[in-house]
């Protein structure tokens, strides 16, 4: 029997305990694996576990810890921070010798022949990868209901979605199955599930983290980022994965600062960062479709930041209304090409029938789910002769205008504060029959991807017993700045009652009679 209390620790606390010899990396990984085994039937956050590899990585971490302990405290301090800390990778991170399906039947059985750059960096840092987390197929979705392998539940209410597309990562972190997880965010896929599951998540600046080895959805929008239970854990994992990669020509040589160093341990010191800061509330992000409870929590958060010394100003991002249309032209257009490689010839699912054309039709017809097909059709249409100028080219012009809105805003303010999602977690099946309603889940997050900026979400309370996320958006490359604000917000709300609440349905997850999450009859995708 392992000690489940270990799973309640933050990643930094685990790192501290490992160095202090309070427990071993092996004990840590066993505690997390046991919890996953005990609770994942009802949650379905995981698609794949590699327990053998995880135990081997943990044992290696223990050996390094033992060596360092013999050498002295300097050697212990020199060890990578996340050595021995368990984490999960979204199922679109390709790893050598392990499956990666990107939540799709078309990649069924695909075993990666190489490590994604971030996976290699995570392994070098000594963190222990447990396996792959559930997601909307090819990251196309906002609820994880579009996974070919069945949906993930929200630990706060098992009848509700965890958000998406990184829903498995968010739910796993919320349910204490891992302290850290990797997600990707093309239009909100880290921030929105983080908000809906009551955890923290950051989408870095486009180009900050290598995309090499990340199954592509929309190349000019995709970014990899961490999910965690607080801002400093986000910083610790971001530190490991950030930085230029020669294998990704769009990754940037902009130097990566020491993120954790600028996030004080002490609450008073952390809160002091707010003094003299100008934060903008973009009025277009509080529009129709926003739940009153969400708006209330976000405005309360703004008020708390203001009373701690920040100046809150009203700003306008006038082209926000074009964000959704712009995104749903650019992302599907890029996806229509990115997903052309799934042809049943070299890897993954193949119908193996008929001639070349028949095999394409059968393989892609049975391998892709309806949402992926919808976006391939949208993107193919937008790029077609005669429509290209009206759709793709126009969307690129709108993209320029949306960027210019943010540029103008950051002339006046240090960061923007907004809701992450207009609603709290919605019931499973509620939006699967209405794609546009589903797309509206991302109205507050996708302009940030369109502009390539860093944005994060941290919990800011509950509405109707479900978590609400506070989104903080910064200028390009200023992840450190928005993490400082997030850390300050945590400091000034450290005593809030909602911070001590566990996800309401955690006890149900421990009940072996809890069924696997599923969609209500008639709402299947």
């Amino acid at each position: 029997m392992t000690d489940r209390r270990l799973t309640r620790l933050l990643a930094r606390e685990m790192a501290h305990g490992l160095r202090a010899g309070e427990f071993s990396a092996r004990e840590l990984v066993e505690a997390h694996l046991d919890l996953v085994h005990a609770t994942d039937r009802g949650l379905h956050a995981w698609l794949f576990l590699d327990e053998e590899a995880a135990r081997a990585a943990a044992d290696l971490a223990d050996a390094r810890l033992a060596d360092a302990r013999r050498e002295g405290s300097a050697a212990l301090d020199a060890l990578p921070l996340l050595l021995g800390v368990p984490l999960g990778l979204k199922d679109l991170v390709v790893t050598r010798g392990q499956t990666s399906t990107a939540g799709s039947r078309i990649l069924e059985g695909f075993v990666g022949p190489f490590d994604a750059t971030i996976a290699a960096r995570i392994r070098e840092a000594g963190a222990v990868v447990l396996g792959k987390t559930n997601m909307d197929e090819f990251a196309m979705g906002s609820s994880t209901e579009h996974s070919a392998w069945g949906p993930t539940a929200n630990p706060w209410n098992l009848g509700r979605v965890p958000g998406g597309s990184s829903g498995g990562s968010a739910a796993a972190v919320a349910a204490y199955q891992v302290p850290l997880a990797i997600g990707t965010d093309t239009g909100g896929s880290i921030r929105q599930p983080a908000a809906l599951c009551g955890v923290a998540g950051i989408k870095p600046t486009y180009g900050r983290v290598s995309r090499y080895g990340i199954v592509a959805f929309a190349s000019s929008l995709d970014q990899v980022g961490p999910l965690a239970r607080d801002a400093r854990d986000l910083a610790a994992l971001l530190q490991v994965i950030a930085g230029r990669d020669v294998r990704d020509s769009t990754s940037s040589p902009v130097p990566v600062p020491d993120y954790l160093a600028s996030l004080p341990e002490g609450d008073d010191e952390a809160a002091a960062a707010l003094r003299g800061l100008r934060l903008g509330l973009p009025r277009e992000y509080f529009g129709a479709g926003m739940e009153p409870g969400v708006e209330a929590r976000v405005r309360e958060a703004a008020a708390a930041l203001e009373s701690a010394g920040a100046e809150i100003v009203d700003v306008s991002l006038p082209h926000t209304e074009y964000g959704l249309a712009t995104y749903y032209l650019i992302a599907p257009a890029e996806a229509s090409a990115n997903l052309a490689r799934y042809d049943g010839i070299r890897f993954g699912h193949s119908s193996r029938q008929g001639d070349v054309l028949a095999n394409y039709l059968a393989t892609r017809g049975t391998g892709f789910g309806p949402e992926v097909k919808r976006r391939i059709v949208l993107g193919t249409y937008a790029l077609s002769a005669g429509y290209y100028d009206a759709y793709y080219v126009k969307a690129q012009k709108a993209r320029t205008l949306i960027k210019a809105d943010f540029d103008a805003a950051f002339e006046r303010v240090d960061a923007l504060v907004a809701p992450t999602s207009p609603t709290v977690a919605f019931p499973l099946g509620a939006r699967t029959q209405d794609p546009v309603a589903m797309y509206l889940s991302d109205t507050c997050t996708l302009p940030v991807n369109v502009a390539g900026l860093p944005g994060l979400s941290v919990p800011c309370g509950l509405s109707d017993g479900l978590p609400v996320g506070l989104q903080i958006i910064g200028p390009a490359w200023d992840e450190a700045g928005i993490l400082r604000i997030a850390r300050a917000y945590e400091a000034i709300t450290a005593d809030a009652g909602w911070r001590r609440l566990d996800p309401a349905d955690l006890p149900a997850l421990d009940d072996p009679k809890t069924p696997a999450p599923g969609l209500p009859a008639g709402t299947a995708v």
Partner: protein
Amino acid sequence: MAEAAAQARVARGAVAWEAVIGIEVHAQLRTASKMFCACSADLRDAGPNTHTCPVCLGMPGVLPVINRRAVELVLSTGMAIDAEIASVTRWDRKNYFYPDLPKGYQISQFDLPLAAHGQLALDTSEGPFTVRIRRAHLEEDTARLQHTADATGRRISLVDFNRSGLPLLEIVTEPDIRTAEQARRYAEELRLLLRTIGASDAEMENGQMRVEANVSIRPAGTHGFGVRSEVKNMNSFRAVERAIAHEIERQAAVLEAGGTLVQETRGWDDVRNETYTMRSKEDSDDYRYFPEPDLPPLRTDPAWLDAIRASMPELPAKRRTRYVSILGLTPYDAGVIVADPAASALFEDALASAAGLPADRRPVPKALANWVTGEYLRLAKQRDDGGHASGAELTRLVSMVGEGRISGTNAKEVFGRHVGSGEPVEAIVSSMGLTQISDSVALSAAIDGVLAANPAAVADCRAGKDQAVRFLVGQVMKATRGQANATMVQRLVRERLEERA
């Protein structure tokens, strides 16, 4: 199209057709690695799918990284054809499904090619001709399909991804070409240019250079365009000329018989000496080009371009002009030397060595050129490795001949051994004991012996038979093991015969 066909019918019965030809060349760039990954681009003796990696196999999650050398080679090609070089360029995705295209799109260049609006001047049997070049851009090659049958006899296709992702230069001309010969000459001259600047080995036989021709015809003197066909599968320069000539004839025959042409792709069958329909192209393909988001746009900064320009060798046209107007070679010899980069390099090295010799021992360029166009090219063609000729050694040898230290005949033998081994000519001459006998006293003894031994030939000489003189000279050369100065022997034999008379 309808208009063009109508024009053709009006001209029916008239003999004069004019062909309108545009050429598209794909050449494999001479880089060490592929265009977007580190796989070796040297495919000699490579088994199927041995030069592959996740990137060129189009695995999930991979990203391209541009090969800077490939870009430089396209830029130098652009400079060599006097093209405008783009200051900012980018890559585009050309989308289509086929098993030879692992990503389902080819990374190419659409509206911002690296180079545009160039030209290439060439000579034809009808005089000089300049072809305007529309664009030169960089793209990746596809895999190769091999259609075969499995053990049960079922027809299958195998894919070899070795070529997938090799860097290709695509050069497209304006429809300026009017004859099959011009087309062949353009292809030859382009190949020479690419080899000279080191952009490509451009061997047509092994697919490093692929030529496609868009061919249409119209009544001479009109300016519209006829229905064109795209001719492919021409695997040699000869095939280019024959295929296009055939295609012009075929189109004329169709129109003259009252038929209509369809836009199509036609292949060239070298054995049957005709083109055949590969596929109809009535609907233009929609490749849904859009900018490649995985590669940032590329700025060609002036310092980079200057460095490339500075490292460019002398181009063939300029070199030919120099050989004729400054060195005094015939246009034919200049053409032969420049057409072969190795011969050209040998000649240049020989000239450089000659420049270091005192004037009285310095061979004239014409003499060196004769050796290059004659002996060198003959010997080089017989060898797979082209031989080991050195320009400095060639100059030394020609200089020895000029000084009378070695006979012309023996010099050829020495040169043959030098090309074979690379050994210095002095060493070959001394090891073979070939220093020429130009001493009349020494030669007189040999001549006396030969005349004494061949009284019948001596008699024939006196009877006026020139053949007999040549026989006696040959005997003297034989007796001196070829070391005699042949011109001197001939003079001495005639003198001695006259004395005896």
